[in-house]
């Protein structure tokens, strides 16, 4: 699984970082980014949780 954060949609709620800090980081200005190339299988559920908690619908699962 790969994921992407749309920088235009992200508003820095940091919900993804809160739920899956192994996959996402948020910079000092509230911009989230993905810090892994491929999501490890054991973290896929956490990553899906982050997607389902983003208030801005800014996280996209690219391939699964």
């Amino acid at each position, binding site marked *: 699984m790969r994921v992407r954060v749309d920088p235009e949609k992200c508003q820095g709620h940091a919900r993804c970082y809160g739920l899956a800090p192994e996959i996402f980081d948020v*910079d000092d*200005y509230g911009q989230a980014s993905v810090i892994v190339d491929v999501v490890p299988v054991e973290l896929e559920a956490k990553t899906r949780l982050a997607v389902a908690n983003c208030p801005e619908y800014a996280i996209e699962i690219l391939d699964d």
Partner: protein
Amino acid sequence: MARTAPVDDWAIDFDVLDPSYVRDPFTIWDDLRSSCPIAHTNRRVSSWLPTRYEDVTAIAHDIEHFSSLRVAVIPVGDEEGGDEDGGGPQLEYGLPPISADPPLHTWTRRLLLPWFSHRRVESYIPLTRQLCQKLLDGFATSGQADAAADYAQQIPVRVIAHILGVPIEMSDDFTGWVRDILEFADDPERRMNGANALLTYFVGELEVRRHSPGDDLLSELLQTEVEGQPLDDGIILGMAALVLIAGVDTTWSAIGSSLWHLATHAEDRKRMVAEPELMPLALEELLRAYSPVTMARLVTADYEYAGCPMKEGDKVLMNFPAANRDPEAFDHPDEVVLDRAHNRHVAFGSGIHRCAGSNLARMELQVALEEWLLRIPEFSLEDGKEIAWAGGQVRGPRVLPVVFP
């Protein structure tokens, strides 16, 4: 229409300060969502009240038609043609970035955000934890406490004082001024006096830091240059006042409402004690179910939204708390499900005005609940004692008597 007149028809004459709305807005929102999802009132000033998630988030994102220049839910004096300045310091730029549109919003927000990044907020955890422990030391063995006044109310204001670099001993004054501004908005004189006291205090603190800067937010703003120019004093004063006003009542209300929920829902309380790993999801669920904050927008020009003929100068009350109870967006929205997996709540807003302090608020709520549950894992409401709620701009318990073994 008198300000305190009872409401007969919530669809066309709502009043967010009506005692029944303050106590239980949830059933009113449910009725409105199915009958008239964007309610209207002419009380105070023509205002609209969306109750559906889809509408609230759409309006929050439409910054062209909906400006943030007037974010007070209850109009401030000059909006009604009155004169409310009372001769105190003025805020010619409002409270940027919350009461600003781009471009002012954009660059003032960038100055504030690093102070509330998740990394910076982690550095405030030890202070917050010590503060909570000290408060608990004061009443944990006494069998009873006012969870709002003795605990929730005492926490965020002290963390904010630390960030601003002002004396923690001033906390009771800060709390009083902020409550005057936000909770007694229908009493213009009280609101004006609160605002004047707060601004006069910050004018003095800024003068001190101009000559002897520290490593606090106020000092940094005084030393900041944008495009080679120092910040206007009015901008700095507005930003300082914002951090205090937005950082106190809001989080305190979230902590208080969460403790009210745990005092009245023994199963959830036991589960949080038994399964501390639930905390990250449980926090968000409590924020969803008891979102404290409603902000306003100003309609910039006559505009029809979803069949509503909005006029230039109307207010739209960004009902984030109602959006978070919308059954179209959340399964069983009126149930607190501590491990709710799908939870795109907008307790901190939506779009470019997402609460700049959300990381701080979340940390304070988490630490406050963790420390409370560690010391007082069993507690319930005290029989026969009244609970008092504040509402309007910020909803939360102000008197919350609880008992424990």
